[in-house]
């Protein structure tokens, strides 16, 4: 049977070009004239942008790697109270985007917040009588981003520890190493590629973050790009800053890919047998429980409680009609984007076949879209849409802005960002399904279309739904591209919460934020179910 038809390969190439178009546009501006703004920026703020960005990335990567690997180590190697609950609870912070944590911690820790008020009530100090750390600072941003992002390292290193053959650690112990020694000398080095990959993913997300740093008024690359465009109205300077950021992002992605490659190699020949967890003395067990609870408390429990309290405070001022409109807007965008992303992913996966083909290799490039920060995708598409509108005006005589500020461009941006989110699981499931079922169905007298609907589709159903849920939630959370590209007077939950928070109506930002976090729980719960299944080895339906 022919495997790859050329129309399929052409389709994949077109899709790929569409996905790299915004990035290519930004890069095309590298040499453009900025009317002296670039020189001005270079003289004045560029140093600060770069240094702050580096400090932020290094800080977040370090803090979340320590938290993620440490907790993964404890839950896989030791038995302690609440271990099973914490094993899953540690994933929950993934539900909350960093900017929502930023709102919650600002409310909690600002001068008028409950912590400082309680402190003053207890001590009788006045507002100026003491020093209190300012959460809206570089340190605060490192804390907030780490609390939101550490689960990436936690998940990936936990999986690495679990998938390591228990025999490797057991052999080390028969060779005279203690449990702790064998863990440090055998398990961690074996998991190192996974840990590096997780940390690089966090570095990538930190470089791309816009909401939290913008809310904290930090001068980093993403906020600099936004300011160059919207405050100075200088697309060329914005694009040049964006190119600089892209170089950093792609460097990180390359590192991540390299360590993943190594990880595949390292995982070979491992068995599924789990390490038997050892019991701890009561004191150590309590310490382990506390240590594992800490990231969960910081990344989920505290902000959730604060947001609920804020919502109650804001109770009277919440406009139910407005909230319904926002939710409907957000859901409509997310449903449309998720449907298109999943359909495209399924088509690319099906068209490129199950074997290594050119189309499949090309599809990997689409992952660059996922690595592209939302600000850059937004700015890039703004340039593309503006250029297309200008062409329409001069060519077809169409007046006004057809593409700029349209839903189509916004959905396009989401597809650029999140195609990979849908393609990853669908392609993996399709490859895992293998060609056998289809071949068996063909020899039993069914045509390819019938095979697709009666065999492939029902078997892939679960994965497709899960992939759609992932894209849905990512679209809901997405802030910068939405802010930049949304149609005039059109708001989503994320943009509304951001505007309320930045215009000193923080309490009112709580309800839309909670709605986003609640939706964010969907994929996290799916993930936890997956973790459970993987542990019981019951993912396979067939022997």
């Amino acid at each position: 049977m022919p495997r790859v038809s050329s129309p399929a390969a052409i389709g994949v190439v077109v899709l790929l070009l569409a996905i790299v178009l915004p990035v290519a546009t930004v890069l095309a501006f590298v040499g453009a004239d900025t009317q002296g703004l670039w020189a001005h920026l270079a003289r004045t703020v560029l140093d600060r942008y770069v240094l702050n960005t580096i400090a932020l990335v290094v800080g977040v990567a370090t803090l979340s790697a320590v938290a993620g690997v440490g907790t993964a180590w404890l839950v896989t190697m030791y038995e302690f109270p609440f271990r099973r609950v914490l094993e899953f609870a540690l994933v929950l912070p993934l539900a909350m985007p960093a900017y929502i944590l930023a709102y919650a911690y600002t409310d909690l820790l600002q001068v008028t917040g409950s912590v400082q008020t309680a402190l003053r009530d207890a001590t009788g100090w006045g507002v100026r009588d003491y020093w209190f750390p300012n959460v809206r600072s570089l340190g605060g941003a490192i804390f907030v981003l780490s609390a939101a992002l550490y689960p990436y390292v936690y998940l990936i290193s936990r999986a690495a520890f679990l998938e390591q053959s228990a025999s490797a650690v057991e052999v080390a112990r028969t060779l005279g190493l203690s449990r702790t020694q064998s863990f440090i000398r055998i398990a961690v080095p074996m998991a190192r590629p996974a840990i590096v990959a997780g940390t690089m993913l966090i570095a990538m997300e930190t470089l791309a973050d816009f909401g939290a740093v913008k809310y904290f008024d930090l001068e980093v690359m993403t906020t600099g790009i936004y300011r160059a465009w919207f405050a100075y109205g200088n697309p060329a300077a914005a694009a040049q800053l964006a190119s600089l950021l892209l170089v950093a992002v792609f460097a990180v992605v390359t590192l991540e890919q390299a360590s993943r490659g190594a990880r595949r190699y390292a995982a070979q020949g491992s068995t599924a047998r789990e390490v038997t967890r050892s019991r701890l003395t009561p004191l150590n067990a309590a310490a382990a429980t506390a240590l594992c609870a800490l990231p969960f408390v910081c990344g989920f429990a505290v902000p959730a409680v604060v947001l609920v309290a804020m919502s109650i405070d804001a109770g009277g001022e919440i406009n139910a009609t407005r909230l319904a409109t926002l939710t409907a807007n957000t859901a409509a965008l997310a449903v449309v984007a998720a449907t298109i992303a999943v359909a495209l992913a399924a088509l690319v996966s099906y068209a490129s076949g199950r074997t290594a083909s050119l189309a499949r290799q090309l599809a990997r490039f689409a992952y660059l879209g996922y690595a592209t920060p939302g600000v850059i995708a937004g700015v890039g598409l703004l340039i593309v849409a503006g250029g297309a509108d200008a062409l329409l005006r001069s060519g077809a005589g169409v007046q006004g802005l057809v593409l700029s500020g349209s839903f189509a461009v916004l959905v396009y941006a989401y597809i650029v960002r999140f195609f990979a989110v849908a393609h990853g699981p669908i392609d993996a499931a399709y490859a895992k399904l293998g060609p056998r079922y289809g071949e068996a169905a063909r020899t039993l007298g069914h045509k390819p279309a019938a095979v697709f609907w009666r065999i492939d589709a029902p078997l892939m159903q679960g994965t497709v739904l899960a992939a759609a849920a992932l894209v849905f939630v990512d679209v809901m959370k997405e802030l910068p591209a939405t802010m930049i590209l949304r149609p005039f007077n059109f708001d989503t939950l994320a943009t509304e919460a951001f505007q309320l928070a930045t215009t000193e109506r923080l309490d009112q930002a709580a309800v839309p934020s909670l709605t986003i976090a609640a939706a964010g729980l969907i994929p996290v719960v799916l993930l936890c179910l997956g973790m459970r299944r993987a542990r019981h080895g019951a993912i396979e339906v067939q022997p």
Partner: protein
Amino acid sequence: MTALKFERVGHSYGTRTALRDFTLATGDGEIVSLLGPSGSGKTTALRIAAGLESPQSGTVHVGEKLVNGAGVYIPPEARDVGLLFQDLALFPHMTIAENVAFGLRTAGRERRTRAGELLDLVGLAGQGNVFPHQLSGGQQQRVALARALAPSPRVLLLDEPFSSLDVVLRQQMRREMVSLLKQLGTSVLFVTHDPEEALYMSDRVAVMRDGAILQVAPPETLYLAPVDRFVASFFGHINIIPAGVADGQAVTPFGAIDAKGLSGDIDVLVRAEGLIVAPGGSHAAVRSARILGASMLLELDPVPSTGLSGVLTARAAVGSHPAVGERVSLALDPRLSFAFAR
């Protein structure tokens, strides 16, 4: 009548040749196996017969119908072949009755009846409503067979169908399958890398290497008259004894066998069971004697005067075998010894 006929079929994956000048015809109701090491092209031949690969040259007929060659390509669904995969590929989202009925063209009551009959045939009567994962490995195997047989294909293709089963179950399934297929008179092409399985299951065996057939013959002929060294060594332990030719005879230290058409330095290949061991003598010393169930496997060190180096293997009946260290004499069973050019 032929059930399946390959004529001069050639196929390659990129630069690697998978099949060269492959010609084979199987008869109605005949079970033919393709036997060879992995990479010998046997699975490619099977996939070509099923229509899952298209050969670059040659023709393939299923029954009288041309399915490959001369610009013709009939897709798998229109070929009238059944295929049983190594990993079975039972559809996990369907009950076993639905699996079995999947290839049936009929509908309604007739369809259910036919599926029930087939499950009956493979000993799974009344279990149609369970899902594949609820069955044991042997039961899944039977369902896969029933599914492949359901549309009454002109020829049934089996791709190492027993490799996922344990030894005991494998032997039981072989027995059941041969008797069922013979009872139904099904024409079968069967791929395996297990010589014992091929000998047990088949009316004829085609031994393959590097994409070509070396010999096609009934099991007994293959065992007693292999055409070359590779075929000879494929079935069990074999001893290679260098020999010279004199008067059309291959002369070894343990006797001479017929060596028609050969000259110069040759090798005599002797099956372990063709090396006859007698107590007392001056050919070899017993190095070890291990019991293999039905017979003993002896390892023998030839004495220096034979001019042979290396260990010889032979078989002996349990209980009457020589002790370790004992000197023995050796003789060749001419039916199990074959002379080939070196």
